[in-house]
């Protein structure tokens, strides 16, 4: 297990200091032993985040203001990375394989047929004559497609099949962008 991706030193509670090397270790109730996992109990994670947030909120931490800001922002960052399937998957790949899919210049690419489909759907959405029904249908199809990828990712991480996980995660990024495009119509 790679532990090289440090999220920095982070003050635990009001007095003690504790080092964490991954975001997972900040949420021991959601991820027992701080063990990286793609599966997550969202309501447990949210609960644990709220408790942490109240401990690290700048208003609640006396003394060194800079440190408090840092802690609060790290908690926020960690929660948002672990909450969303796309960023959680990117993070799993980063800490396990050292590949940062959020960084440019990775010599990795999804298949041309996926890009073609992304283009075609975007072209439909950019067409002014598109009906609300068609937008709803495209949205539903995209949601289903994203759910299917997340399910496949779950299997990949369970079987430690990182090469497939990398491909699926890159693909998921395109569909997530499409989902944002649909939201803004």
């Amino acid at each position, binding site marked *: 297990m790679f532990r090289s991706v440090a999220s920095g030193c982070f003050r635990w509670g009001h007095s003690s200091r504790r080092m964490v090397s991954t975001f997972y270790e900040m949420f021991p109730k959601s991820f027992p032993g701080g063990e990286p996992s793609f599966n997550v109990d969202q309501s447990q994670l949210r609960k644990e985040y709220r408790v942490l947030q109240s401990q690290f909120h700048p208003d609640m931490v006396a003394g060194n203001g800079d440190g408090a800001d840092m802690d609060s922002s790290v908690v926020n960052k960690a929660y948002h990375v672990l909450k969303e399937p796309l960023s959680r998957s990117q993070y799993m790949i980063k800490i396990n394989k050292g590949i940062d*899919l*959020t*960084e*440019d*210049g*990775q010599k*990795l*690419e*999804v298949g*041309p047929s996926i*890009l*073609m489909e*992304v*283009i075609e759907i*975007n*072209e439909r959405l950019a067409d002014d004559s598109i009906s*609300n029904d068609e937008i709803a249908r495209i949205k539903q199809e995209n949601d289903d497609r994203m759910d299917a990828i997340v399910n496949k990712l779950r299997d990949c991480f369970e079987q430690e099949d990182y090469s497939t996980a990398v491909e699926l995660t*890159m693909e998921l*990024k*395109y569909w*997530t*962008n499409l989902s944002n*495009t649909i939201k*803004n*119509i």
Partner: protein
Amino acid sequence: MIVSNLLKSTTSTAATRITITQLTARRLYHPKVIEHYTNPRNVGSLDKKSSNVGTGIVGAPACGDVIKLQIQVNDSTGIIEDVKFKTFGCGSAIASSSYMTELVHGMSLDDAYKIKNTEIAKELSLPPVKLHCSMLAEDAIKAAIKDYKTKRTNPTVLH
């Protein structure tokens, strides 16, 4: 009638929202990027089945931007006679592909293949975090040229 008015009003609200978002985003861009972004050159599609059209489709997995760039080539002179693009992504990606189409129009395939992303980045004054957009545009023209050349070497046999 009522339904159609309702639809119209929904559409115009959505359009306003997009415009506001875009305006906010635009402030972060260099004027040259904004100029290409608001008035992109050569937007559209060419017939990808046509034997003298090369299509390049590329994407950046980090940001999720996609570019489709198509060239129509004069088979006897090897000159790019027409060029169209469609880009779904950030302002810099749109501006980079728009400027790329301006550059390659009327150019020979060999010269177009030699265009470096730095040329685009310099023209548009792209900041370091947006350099990958110009690289994507370079990848797109190269992919379109390769596609055209593949078509020339392996012409589709019509049965």
